[in-house]
């Protein structure tokens, strides 16, 4: 517990130092057109949430849209990735046929995949979904597949000996062993997803944080551009630390049992 507090303190301190450096630089430069200070950005962010923006909506709307896009595309990729990874791990035919295709998919650079998806599906929600799934699903599938290879065969044998059916093995034997792999795929895949969604919004989707960023970029409004970037970063960090870290520590509670 003490260690935990210490690490929180250290993190707060390093963020504070970063803000201080930023503030000093902006004061020295003294040109809000190029580098506005942290206070100006904070004021702009608050104002963006309070007053309607250029499209007549406040920042709540754009943040909500971006979050919804991330949530939907990421959930679809996770479900598909876990399904494919499991199929590869538990079925020889799936393993052989997919093991050739997946490295191919992983080789295509993310940004090219986004362009491809946009060319096929236009600037639409479907385009964003396809782009995210094309990039994130193979990655998750490979991770889960690796996880199935690392599963303890003696436990499967135990389950089979006691006549456990496949769905019971899946729930109680396979999935818990895959949890570390699912979580690492989750973290990396989530990072990929929000980058792709931001990219797609910047290039042409209507509404969303990326869209607003690009709007202000075209106006050359440095304060607004930075404000939207900061909003994005803070949002993603909050999700990471407040939501995922908690789910993770709960899922792995059995690893650090309290000695009686």
């Amino acid at each position, binding site marked *: 517990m003490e260690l935990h507090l210490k690490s929180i303190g250290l993190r707060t301190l390093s963020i504070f130092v970063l803000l201080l450096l930023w503030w000093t630089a902006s004061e020295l430069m003294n040109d809000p057109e190029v580098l506005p200070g942290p206070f100006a950005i904070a004021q702009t962010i608050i104002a963006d949430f309070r007053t309607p923006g250029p499209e007549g909506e406040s920042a709540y709307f754009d943040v909500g849209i971006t979050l919804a896009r991330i949530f939907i595309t990421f959930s679809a990729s996770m479900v598909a990735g876990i399904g494919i990874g499991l199929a590869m791990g538990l079925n020889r035919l799936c393993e052989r046929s997919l093991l050739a295709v997946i490295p191919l998919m992983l080789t295509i650079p993310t940004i090219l995949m986004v362009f491809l998806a946009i060319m096929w599906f236009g600037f639409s929600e479907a385009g964003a979904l396809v782009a995210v799934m094309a990039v994130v699903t193979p990655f998750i599938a490979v991770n889960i597949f690796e996880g199935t290879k690392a599963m303890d065969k*003696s436990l499967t*044998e135990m*389950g089979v000996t006691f*006549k*456990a059916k496949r769905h019971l093995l899946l729930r109680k*034997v396979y999935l818990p062993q895959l949890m570390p792999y699912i979580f690492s795929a989750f973290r990396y895949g989530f990072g990929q997803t929000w980058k792709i969604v931001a990219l797609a919004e910047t290039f042409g989707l209507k509404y969303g944080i990326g869209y607003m960023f690009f709007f202000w970029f075209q106006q050359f409004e440095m304060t607004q551009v930075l404000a939207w970037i900061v909003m994005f970063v803070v949002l993603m960090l909050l999700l990471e630390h407040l939501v995922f870290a908690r789910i993770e520590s709960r899922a792995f509670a059995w690893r650090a049992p309290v000695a009686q």
Partner: protein
Amino acid sequence: MSAQATQNVQRVKIAPVVPREPIGHGVMTSSAITIDRLTKKFPSPGSSGDKFVVLHDISLAVDEGKFVSIVGPSGCGKSTLLNVIAGIESYDGGNVTIHPNANRTGSKPRIGYVFQSPRLLNWLTVENNIHFVLEAQNVPRQRWRDLVAQNLEMVGLAGQERNYPLSLSGGMQQRVAIARALAIEPDILLMDEPFSHLDAITARKIRFDLMDILARAKPTILFVTHDLAEAVFLSDHIYMMSTKPARIFKQVAIDIPRPRQPEDSEIVDLEKTLVREFFSVVEVKG
């Protein structure tokens, strides 16, 4: 696996349930497991098609309610034999039959298994580890609570329901594994060197407790070990196995009355005789 290799592959057979005639003074004695000229081959590593014989012409019978041990050196195929009986491995020749308990008509025989290592699901509590096998065996949910409590109490772990396996010692984990196997109320309990990974003192304590447990639960036990002293102390009957290919070269009935002590002179003497005999037959490398 080639088409030829899959020919003649057999799996353990379940005998039909027939009401048996009481023998003698109304006491039922009947076989729980009969193995007749069992042969099992494995593909040789490296070469194609060729197979080496793991189990050769094994015949044995385990009577209902008896404690039968198979003693043999490491790598002689004892575990393979248990896996064949458990139905998770096939065999190539002979017959392996399990006879359902005559007193429990209508259900297939239940087989409990205690492995060398506990093989618990570490992410589940002790209680949920037992629930896992109860669910696998389709035991009605309303009985789970009692079965868990009874069997944990029996292995000396009452009150540990909510703990995770990793918070227990190795000996306690193996006790959970025993409780798990007993919870399904097995007709047959297969035990594969269950104490070989424990330190001598813990193993001794659990062996004693096992005798008490079995006096209450009374399943038929087939116990595999390389430890003759352990086998003599625990068993009603011992089969001795040699290696390469594994075959049974001697069987001994042990009539020493219970409760027994590992230091009883009868037990120690019998062990000495058997050890001598063992080394005259089995060549042990190393």
